[in-house]
């Protein structure tokens, strides 16, 4: 290389061909922005993007990369570069050999310098995947570049590899600018054997997850969530739980392996492995750029440019959101943060200034010359969010206490205790029938989610805030000194020049707030609807079937209420009290049975009809309509049924109640499917004529009816209120949950089903009693 050090970067890069990977990522976009802005004389910029082919890569370049607001200020030069063919997109996959490009392809030939930004930055990825991507991926790139150089007869290109400051492992004190593996205290590491071991875990865990202990646990949890929905939905959920368990266990094992070796997580270990592997390749020109925690931009493309939540942000948000007030960490420790545009500048400058000697390591960190401690950060964050609090779900400002620090062990201990308490509550709830169980279950769930989130935060980010080290950046300073005065203004990467309080308060935290601001729901216009209405119009579609669960959707009652009404009707006062007490004593048992399986509960419950005179009960049931059904009718359901009628839908009412009790409802729909009791010699046997119509049976019935009438299930509607209706709701195209119990509400939220709130008439409770004949 020729030319003085005072030559500009643009001049140094003029006429060269540059390869950039990871341009769809946060840092990659920033680097591409710098290149488009500063190096218009580059002969060509080639981008490697994940896509099926180069066409697809170009499409991604347009839609995923250039569409970003990071390119607003260089839009013109980007468009002209694209039009002139100076900006090319190549399809490439770093987890495939030769980047998955076809044999004999010369797209990677003639490259002078490559900047490798592509990496997986997830902290919750299985170890094998992240090593494959970050370490092997870098090697694959080198191989492909060498092959391209050989094919075109050019020299081997220079490589700028973006690593991380934490690739050096968890260290205390000064961390030197040396690639991983060069200091004697580091453990011996073999890339292939780590990868093999991590891959083997998948098979092991899959086998382990099928062991009886685990199977039982998955089944138990699935039953807790979906019990009444029937065996198959429970089985499906158990399988989902098993997969989720394998995934989380893979991450956990990977993390444990990394911590054993002395790294914080798979990400930093994989970067360390990559550095070692690249050093072993003996490249003629190799630079490692090692940024600390990358956060929002300081100046370019605009102050506060941020895409996605970065490392330090979840903790800040959890704190400002009032979720956590005690965090693991060392308040006097330095949290090393660096704005993204500084890193991007450093990458481009490193690409223009080949290393002497190679490999060269450039740390981009502030700890040595301009440190900011965790305590200072938390003070700024507190002040910022005290002055401008985040809104809670209702839009009211969230209040939070001062941030306190504790050792990781203490925080984990507190979380363990909280989890144990929640588990106990959960067990209690499953065994003991309590009133308002829905509400208790919901609160328990919210609390569990909170504890889980805190644990994740503590597990993942704990090591970063507990570190007590300073990254040496002498090499970086030296490179900074070689910049020409004009470049120094526009391409500076001097972390000493940052005013941290100002950066946090005015740049980063506002950007973060913008990022997490929930989308504001459109304000309702027009007259406010009264209770029970405003359920929205029905979607258009061909006439089909509409299934309505009766209990809980059409009528606010249960099988047991029907029974109690029927039996206590006409009982003298005292008898009714005694009888009622007897039934009440059995109610908790029924409630628990119902939570486990609706079908089993129905069978169990109908035994209470054993030995009762059939004709008498049928006669009593004649006044069911006005005495029991109409007062509990949810009139919104009637209106909804009528709306379906107008669409031409056929209304099918499904109920677990006995046929003679709900017979009057037949006029409401076109079809009424109810339970039938077996009758022998004028008395009920307590047996059902057919299996109870619950859970999957309803789904099967819906399917059959739809087939019979030749309509598509996708056009059908179904309305249910409990998780036992889940199979029915899943099988139709339009599912609606009405006053859902906690478990169905959760499923409805997951699937995006509408949740309707229907009510009985207040007049039902305030009406005067019907007069009884005097002297009768």
């Amino acid at each position, binding site marked *: 290389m020729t030319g003085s050090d005072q030559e500009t970067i643009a001049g140094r890069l003029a006429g060269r061909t540059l390869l950039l990977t990871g341009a769809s990522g946060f840092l990659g976009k920033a680097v591409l922005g710098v290149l488009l802005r500063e190096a218009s004389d580059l002969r060509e910029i080639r981008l490697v993007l994940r896509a099926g082919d180069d066409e697809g890569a170009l499409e991604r370049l347009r839609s995923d990369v250039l569409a970003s607001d990071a390119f607003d200020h260089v839009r013109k030069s980007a468009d002209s570069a694209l039009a002139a063919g100076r900006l090319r997109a190549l399809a490439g996959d770093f987890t495939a050999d030769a980047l998955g490009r076809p044999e004999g392809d010369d797209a990677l030939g003639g490259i002078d310098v490559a900047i490798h930004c592509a990496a997986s930055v997830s902290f919750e990825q299985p170890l094998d995947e992240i090593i494959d991507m970050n370490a092997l991926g870098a090697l694959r790139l080198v191989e492909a570049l060498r092959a391209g150089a050989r094919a075109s007869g050019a020299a081997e290109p220079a490589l700028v590899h973006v690593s991380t400051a934490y690739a050096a492992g968890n260290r205390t004190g000064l961390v030197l600018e040396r690639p991983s593996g060069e200091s004697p205290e580091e453990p011996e590491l073999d890339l292939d054997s780590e990868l093999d071991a991590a891959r083997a875990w998948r098979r092991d865990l899959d086998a382990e997850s099928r062991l009886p202990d685990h199977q039982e646990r998955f089944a138990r949890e699935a039953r807790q969530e979906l019990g009444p929905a029937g065996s198959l939905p429970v089985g499906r959920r158990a399988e989902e739980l098993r997969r989720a368990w394998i995934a989380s266990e893979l991450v956990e094992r990977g993390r444990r392996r990394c911590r054993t070796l002395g790294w914080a997580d798979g990400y930093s270990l994989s970067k360390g492995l990559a550095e070692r592997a690249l050093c072993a390749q003996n490249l003629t020109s190799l630079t490692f750029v090692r940024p600390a925690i990358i956060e929002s931009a300081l100046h370019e493309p605009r102050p506060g440019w941020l895409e996605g939540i970065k490392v330090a942000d979840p903790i800040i948000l959890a704190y400002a959101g009032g979720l956590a007030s005690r965090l693991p960490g060392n308040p006097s420790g330095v949290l090393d943060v660096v704005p993204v545009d500084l890193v991007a500048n450093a990458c481009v400058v490193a690409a223009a200034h080949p290393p002497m000697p190679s490999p060269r390591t450039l740390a981009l960190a502030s700890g040595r010359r301009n440190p900011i401690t965790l305590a200072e950060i938390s003070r700024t964050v507190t002040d910022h969010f005290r002055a401008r609090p985040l809104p809670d779900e209702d839009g009211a400002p969230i209040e939070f206490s001062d941030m306190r620090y504790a050792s990781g062990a203490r925080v984990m201990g507190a979380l363990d205790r909280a989890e144990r308490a929640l588990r106990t509550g959960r067990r209690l709830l499953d065994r003991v029938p309590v009133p308002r169980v829905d509400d208790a279950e919901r609160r328990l769930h919210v609390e569990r989610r909170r504890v889980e989130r805190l644990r994740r935060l503590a597990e993942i980010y704990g090591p970063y805030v507990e570190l007590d080290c300073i990254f040496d950046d002498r090499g970086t300073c030296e490179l900074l000194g070689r910049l020409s005065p004009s470049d120094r203004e526009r391409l500076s990467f001097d972390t000493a020049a940052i005013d941290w309080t100002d950066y946090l308060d005015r740049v980063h935290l506002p950007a973060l707030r913008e990022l997490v601001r929930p989308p504001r729901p459109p304000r309702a216009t027009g*007259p406010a*609807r*009264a*209770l*029970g*209405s405003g359920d929205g119009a029905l979607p258009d579609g061909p006439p089909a079937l509409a299934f309505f669960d009766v209990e809980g959707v059409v009528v606010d009652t249960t099988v047991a209420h029907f029974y109690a009404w029927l039996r206590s009707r006409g009982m003298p006062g005292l008898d009714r009290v005694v009888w009622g007490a007897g039934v009440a004593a059995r109610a908790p048992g029924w409630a628990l049975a119902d939570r486990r399986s609706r079908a089993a509960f129905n069978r169990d419950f109908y035994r209470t009809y054993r030995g009762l005179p059939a004709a008498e009960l049928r006669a009593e049931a004649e006044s069911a*309509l*006005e005495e029991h059904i*109409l*007062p509990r*009718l949810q*009139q*919104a359901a*009637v*209106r909804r*049924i*009528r709306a379906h009628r107008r669409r031409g839908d056929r209304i099918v009412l499904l109920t677990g109640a006995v046929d003679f009790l709900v017979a*009057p409802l037949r*006029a*409401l729909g076109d079809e009424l499917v109810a339970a039938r009791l077996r009758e022998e010699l004028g008395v009920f046997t307590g047996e059902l004529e057919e299996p109870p119509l619950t859970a999957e049976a309803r789904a099967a019935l819906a399917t059959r009816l739809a087939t019979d009438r030749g309509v598509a299930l996708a056009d059908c509607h179904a309305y249910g209120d409990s998780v036992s209706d889940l199979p029915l709701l899943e099988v139709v195209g339009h599912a609606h949950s009405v006053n859902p119990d906690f478990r169905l509400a959760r499923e409805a939220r997951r699937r995006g089903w509408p949740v309707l709130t229907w009510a*009985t*008439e*207040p*007049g*039902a*409770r*305030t*009406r*005067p*009693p*019907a*007069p*009884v*004949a*005097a*002297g*009768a």
Partner: protein
Amino acid sequence: MVEPPAPSADGRPARRRPAAERGASVSEVTVKSPPTLFHAGESFRLERLPVGSRVVHAPPPLKGLGDLDAAIDRALDEPLGADPLDARLRAGMRLTIAFDDLSVPLPPMRAPDVRGRIVERVLERAYRAGVDDIHLIAALALHRRMTPAELRHALGPAVFDAFGPDELYNHDAEDPDGNVVIGETDHGEPVTLNRRAAESDLLVYVHLVTAPLQGGPKSAAIGLGTYRSISAHHTTHTLRHSRSFMDPDHSELHHSSGRQGELIERAVPVFHLEATLNDAMYAEPLRFLGKPEHLWTPREQVVFAGVKRAVDRMPVRARRTAFSRMSAPYAVTSVTGGAVDAAHAVALERLAEQQAVRVEGQSDVVTAGLPYIGPYNVNSILNPILVMCLGLGYFFNLYQGRPLVREGGALIFTHPVPRDFHPVHHPSYIDFYEEVLAETTDPAELERRFERDYAEDEWYRHLYRTSHAYHGVHPFYMWYWGAHALEHVGEVIFVGGDREACRRMGFRRADTMLDALEMAEQVVGRDPSITHFGCPPLFYCEVE
């Protein structure tokens, strides 16, 4: 003061108005006047009206008949314009007795109900003549079916127990086999009738006339009619041209239903019976509520204060129960029988003696307190639509001549207008409130867009026929009932009304009477003339 009645144009002597002639029915508010009583649903309010306001009180109750049985016998033996009942009864004939349902009188009459007394005497004669094919039918039109307890109250236990459910039942306007088409009037109004009544050799119709609206030739056409025949005149157009429907001579509703009635009389022999009651709505210890406030004794004032306190502190259901249990110690003032027109004319005269009050001139603002009961919520709940019907339908139309409130004037009612509906009695009202009123409150528009859907809805039809629900179309009729008032007045304000319910129905509401009067001033101008319409007890104004 009292002038002798001058003969009217058609030569008949003009009706005497003893109550109106008493002259004490209209008073003026002075600085010394006690506050004015306003009914407000299941409660009361005492309001001070501005000095100079006019208060129209109900006339005091007339004395009842001394010997009711003798009066009934006289009506049966010496009918007007018809042969005596005995002469029309013969063995082997089919006799049907139809009677008014529980929408009259309000509140229900303390047992024994006069309907039962009359039916008993009719049955006596029928048995004596050897008639054994007798049906008793509650002529309820599109109202809800009466419960056994209610039928028992109306007819008395003896009659009720003597007839089985096949012989004593409610008219079913939706029974496809139970009604027949009689024909069509020369104005094209279809006429239908209960099949049993149409196929009877004699139809005895027992009527209770408690307002000028009721009785007369329209009875059978409506009471035993179907949606098809009733919908001929229960329309926005007819009711806008019935000024008022409490004045049969100027009521398009009466003209139309009268034409139907004539057709029925030609097809079926009818023996018409009409009874009138006095205004004794309140039993002791609340009898004083029927008197003007300045006549309340100190003891009565204490009783009122106690009752109001107790009522206001009761839970809603208990309060509704207490009010719905009240019955009135009415006395019967007349029983008339014979041909429809002749009997009805006499009944109307007797009614006028009790209820007509002469009032001079209209007012800018008319205030009234709406009570807990209307014709369609006996043993039930006065829902918002029924409140509208009671205020703008009944109270506004209780006039002959001109409305008490001037055109463009303001009506101020006191009622809490709770959004409560009886789920058994008024199911279609709930949907009317939620669906129809959310779209429009214009009677003509909702008639055009929604009436048919509700009238022909299978579920409402099912509930009307098998349960105790009003017909699906009934809330629409309630709204048409107020069509004339909606067109006539400039503002309707409910003092103490529920915000959402009043808004939904297109009315305004105020917290106090003073606020309401101020709001009214914005419509009718400063210092308006104010008249308080002191109903109940029931009466009507002849406005000159």
